[in-house]
């Protein structure tokens, strides 16, 4: 089976760069599953999980991104994310605390942070896409 080259880039560094089998990215209008030979798409992302699979459909890594952009063409997929963390390294208790703190605050900025934090919590709790 063919592979597609995948770059995950944050402002600070290049987080991931390799040939992979499948990628799932959280598009603004719904999740996008990307296989080699995908048509050209440019999409903005919502906060959520970016899942990377090997050629034989085994999950290699899952990242949490707080939003960004994906540029996809048949040979390459580039995800520009504002902040990237591996889902495994997220801590449930600290995020729950963050959500509680943010819920008490008002204002547009904390609202945004809240939605990101909630998405983070969801990313830990859900396990769909673990096997495809």
């Amino acid at each position, binding site marked *: 089976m063919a592979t597609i080259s995948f770059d995950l880039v944050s402002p600070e*560094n290049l987080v991931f760069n390799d040939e992979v089998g499948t990628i799932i990215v959280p598009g603004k209008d719904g999740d996008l599953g990307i296989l080699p030979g995908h048509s050209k798409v440019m999409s903005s992302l919502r906060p959520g999980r970016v899942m990377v699979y090997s050629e034989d459909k085994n999950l290699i890594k899952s990242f949490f991104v707080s939003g960004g952009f994906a540029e996809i063409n048949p040979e390459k997929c580039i995800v520009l994310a504002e902040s990237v963390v591996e889902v495994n390294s997220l801590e449930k208790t600290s995020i729950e605390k963050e959500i509680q703190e943010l819920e008490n605050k008002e204002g547009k900025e904390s609202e945004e942070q809240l939605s990101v934090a909630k998405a983070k919590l969801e990313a830990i709790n859900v396990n769909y896409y673990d096997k495809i």
Partner: protein
Amino acid sequence: MPSLKDIKTQINSVGSTKKITSAMKMVAASKLRRSQEKAEAARPYSSRLEEMLSSLASSAASGEGIIKLLTGTGSDQNYVVVPVSADRGLCGGFNSSINRETFKLVKSLEGNGKKVQLMAVGKKSRDFFNRVMKHQIIESFVDLNVSSTGYESALNISNKLQELYFDGKFDKCILVFNKFKSAISQEVTQQQLIPLDVSNSEKEEEKENSSNAIYDYEPDEETILKDLLPKNVSIQIFKVLLESDAGEQGARMAAMDNATRNAGEMIDSLTLKYNRTRQAFITKELIEIISGAESI
């Protein structure tokens, strides 16, 4: 004529200065390596973002709101100039060249009848412009420490700029910063940040358009552009901050290298002088003894 003791003290003090400057040089060299790595790590993101933007830019003819970051306000009366300097000195002409260039730019813009405001980044430019054109500073950012705080610091500046822009406080924003060319040379560069200057990326766009088919946009071009433009401003600032940081370390390293060498030369010439003076004293004493003995 200075006494032997005077020269000796001078040699010692130059010697300790030399020790300090050579230590600073080594510190700057190791910091330079780190800053350079950071600057290089940030490059893929900004270049990809630019590619995306240039392929999108053509689709935005005109518009209200965020699109104004690309198309401009339609006027060019009010400018904001952002000089990016270091927080600390002892790095040769690094800060003063930024200040000089900014000063020249401001004067020439004012000469053309524009209104100019300043947003100083870094202590050295803030202090300088506080002295010469205090009333024009609208905001200053110091102690950014970009190599440790990272993207956050750029975000602060960019948010402030965009807030002012959408309030209609200015029409154009120009960054003045030291572009990192190599470890020993920096180039003072002006970059127009708002509205986005796509003129130099247009060529790439043509190249891309001819070789590539058209993208599907999800949700749609305008929404993406609206997300992309503010992000681009922050990223550009981030890139500039990192470049300037690397440049600062490079400039400091070069300046301290020079200072160390000068101190070495000074010690050599002082040692020579010390030895000469010592010999002169001995000769003088000898002459005194001999002439004393002769007169008896």
